[in-house]
């Protein structure tokens, strides 16, 4: 469905990605794990067109996305939940959701989707007229996910959704990802919480300093000795 071929990204003189290849199949949860600065976020940002690609290609259902501006990528059904939630603090919860549907014009379907976001996250419904900045961290994360769902995405990319959340909320977030999978969403998940990510993922990639070092089904990588030592804190 989504194919990333030999992706390179440079920031000034610094190389962030040196040749990444990813394949994401429909209805899969694919995860990217790796240490800080390994290039996980850069991969997502490059796919979304937020940073320039110095080389490589992004194909979506055969269409070349490599040089498409972000707004057109979103319009074709790829949404991203940015790292750090980044809700619009001065806008109400509902206004945030309406902006999520910015590329759509089917008013009826949008109203329906807002309702279904509220069904998934009842807390947001209670606070629909509150400014997003007044929400707790966990609620803001729900809003960020809900806002991305308003794109009606074929592929949802999530950048560190559990970062900075209390353990109980982290569990909530992964429950949500499971719900999304059951609804048929395709998800590309970037996580520092490697164990949880691998447990949930159909397929996983391990990034180190801008390169892929390992890939395979999530369960297989959970058993992998190198992964256990480097990312799961399992001592030998």
């Amino acid at each position, binding site marked *: 469905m989504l194919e990333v071929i030999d992706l390179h990204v440079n920031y000034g003189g610094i190389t962030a990605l040196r040749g990444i290849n990813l394949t994401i199949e429909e209805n899969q949860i694919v995860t990217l794990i790796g240490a800080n600065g390994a290039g996980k976020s850069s991969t997502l940002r490059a796919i*979304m067109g*937020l940073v320039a690609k110095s080389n490589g290609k992004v194909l979506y259902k055969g269409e070349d996305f490599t040089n498409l501006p*972000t707004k057109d990528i979103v319009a074709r059904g790829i949404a*991203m939940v940015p790292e750090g939630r980044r809700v619009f603090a001065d806008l109400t919860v509902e206004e945030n959701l309406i*902006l*999520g549907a910015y*590329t759509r014009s089917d008013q009826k379907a949008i109203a329906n989707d807002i309702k279904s976001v509220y069904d998934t996250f009842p807390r947001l419904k209670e606070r629909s007229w509150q400014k997003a900045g007044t929400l707790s961290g966990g609620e803001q994360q729900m809003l960020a996910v809900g806002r991305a769902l308003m*794109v009606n995405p074929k592929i949802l990319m999530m950048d560190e959704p559990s970062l900075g959340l209390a353990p109980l909320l982290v569990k909530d977030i992964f429950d949500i990802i499971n719900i999304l999978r059951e609804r048929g969403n395709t998800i590309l998940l970037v996580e520092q919480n490697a164990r949880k990510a691998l447990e949930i993922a159909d397929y996983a990639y391990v990034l180190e300093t801008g390169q892929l070092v390992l890939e395979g089904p999530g369960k297989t990588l959970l058993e992998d000795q190198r992964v256990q030592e480097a990312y799961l804190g399992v001592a030998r």
Partner: protein
Amino acid sequence: MGDVSIFLQHLTNGISLGSLYALIAIGYTMVYGILRLINFAHGDIFMLGVYLTFYGVIYTPLPWWLVFILAPLLTGFIGILLEKVAYKPLRGSARITILISAIGASFLLQNLGIVIFGGRPRAFPVPQLLNHVIKLGGVSINVVTFIIPAVSILLLIGLTYFTTKTKTGLAMRALSKDYETASLMGIDINRIISITFFMGSFLAAIGGILWGSRYPQLMPLMGAMPGLKSFIAAVVGGIGNITGAVIGGFILGLGEIMLVAFLPRLSGYRDAFAFVLLIIILLVKPSGLMGNKVTEKV
């Protein structure tokens, strides 16, 4: 009784001038909100709006009221063009670079004005409807003094509706807070920037027409002082904040008129009032009356 009516007369004058400053200040504040740029050419856009109206009324067979609508629309498109030519190519450069480009654009427009319109002052063709004196309880007031705040308030209501109730208005507010996340919503940033410049320039031109109806002398440099004062109004109110710009405009307009009215010995310092106010605000509350404390995003 006499004192009260004189005070009321000054009050209406102050409100009238204040709403003009407010209309122009909104353009500064909207552009700043989106681009973090002080559009120093904004006062000259105001001047262009007045001249376009002048030429439209004098040299075309169109009725004046139609010109009063078309000229601001045209000025709006000039605003879009200004952004495309002077600011867009520099997007992503240091802010000081774009600021210097803004100053350059201002000089360019002023001097183009001198070349094209001539340096000789012209008289603004004020329609009879706007320009007659009525008597209200012993006070003689020109109707334009009432029309100015009335038009301004209508435009402000429209603008408030636009920014709070429409999708484009929401996108504008989102963009002013977080570019990258706004683009993740699929917002076309260039389009929103163009709309922002259009609206700011449109309002400045309306302000220009009202200004011309009240002070009917046209000069290519006429935008400089109102532009500067409206910029101060925007800063006093808290730049980036539309309500703040309106409040700042009224404070400036009222203050200026009252200073001249009640301290006639200081009337020579009329223009200095705005700058003194600016200095005080920058010392006491640099973020402006309605401004949020600026926190740099990490």
